[in-house]
């Protein structure tokens, strides 16, 4: 995979972002990174967490 922050089975994201993903229950490998070369940022993880909870809210609606 090119330019999606994931190569060689690895997601490129800073340690603080990886921790946040665990905290918010976000699977990093499903997040589209908006940073350089697809690096996953804090904002990407928060957005993913939000859209997941929105999706969850919609399905329970």
């Amino acid at each position: 995979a090119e330019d999606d922050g994931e190569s060689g089975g690895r997601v490129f994201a800073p340690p603080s972002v990886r921790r946040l993903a665990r905290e918010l229950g976000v699977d990093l490998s499903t997040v589209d990174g908006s940073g350089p070369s697809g690096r996953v940022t804090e904002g990407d993880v928060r957005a993913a967490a939000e859209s997941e909870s929105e999706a969850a809210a919609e399905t329970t609606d």
Partner: protein
Amino acid sequence: MVVGDIATGTDVLVIGAGPGGYVAAIRAAQQGLDTTLVERDAYGGTCLNYGCIPSKALITGSDLAHEAGHAEEMGIHADPVVDMSQLRDWKDGVVDQLTGGVEKLCKANGVNLVEGTARFKDENAVRIAHGGEGQGSETIEFEHCIIATGSRVIQIPGFEFEDEHVWSSRDALAADSIPDRLVVVGGGYIGMELSTTFAKLGSDVTVVEMLDDILPGYESDVARVVRQRAEDLGIDMHFGEGASSWREEDDGIIVTTELEGGDENEYRADKVLVAVGREPVADTMELENAGIETNERGFIEVDDFRRTDTENIYAVGDVVADTPMLAHVASKEGIVAAEHIAGEPVAFDSQAVPAAVFTDPEIGTVGMTEDEAEEAGFTPVVGQMPFRASGRALTTGHADGFVRIVADENSGFVLGAQIVGPEASELVAEVALAIEMGATLEDIASTIHTHPTLAEAVMEAAENALGQAIHTLNR
């Protein structure tokens, strides 16, 4: 909470006060958990007492004495004499200061300290056998336990460390005189660090290694720089030979080695240092009572949070399978285990595990080699900067070696570095951060690096990988 007359209870019990255990205990206590740390020997474990710290202190002394005696080219004329028992005392002073510090830090963070050997009664209790006579034993019940019992030196048949002529690394580090002739069995990092140290202190050193190079696990062009320097220091290296026996003769000993074809060689020496590796200490605590098994090599297997098969029992450090036996790995694992017990969203997810060898010159590596990057599915691009093109290296008089940086060609993400040269152990820190952050070659190349520093070579290597180095020709 007191659970009975002879039994006490604790939230977290940590077994072993090495860099795995004491760090885990301090962090657990910082998380507000009632924490108890059991140690049967000395605070700081192998690392502070018999490993990292004393070896680096002796290296400092041997470097200074050797350098000052070999700086005529710089106009410095000296003929240093080393008083080994004074050097040992200085080293012991450093060790005492640090181990005393560990004890104080544990107490200051509210860790309960218990001296003795811990053995499991079951999944929620250990019995502590106190060392001193008539000290008896006590039981400690725990919610969670962190095993950090470390490793011990491997002994080979015929070479008993009890014998005064046979040294373990621990004996070598406690020496109060310099042997005239030293045979070192094993050319791994501990063997090579000590060979260099004693060669600089004046010993005639012979290294005997079963494999065909020193420093197995390191790339051959990295090892070559150290091997060349070792040769220049007069260290005699023999490959494809295993030590088979030794005997006393005249004033010294003779070490016999076996070659592949069955031939034998003999080396005269005063001491023989056996440094063929270390094995986990998992047999001191009756693990089976807690339902934990070790793998076929004696290590404990753990998950991403350093949990063993028994969910409330964690293991960290040298005793753990799959991660390198290094102090900073032990400490990191200790932190992960302690925070996981406290409910923090942690995991052992480090992308970059640095390692250093304190030979002359030093080696510092982190992340992937070019081959490893290829295997992992990347398209590696590498950049290199020789220290002989570094202004700072030349001004220190130490310009052997190079910085190599490995990145993914498509994304530019930095994947690893192999550094051999002055302060290599320090220089990897920047690359480790780069890898963890998901930095690209361009990120390193466009960060201003102070002139004149060795760290500029990291920047230059990144620029070289990008085809735009200033101080080397681009590939």
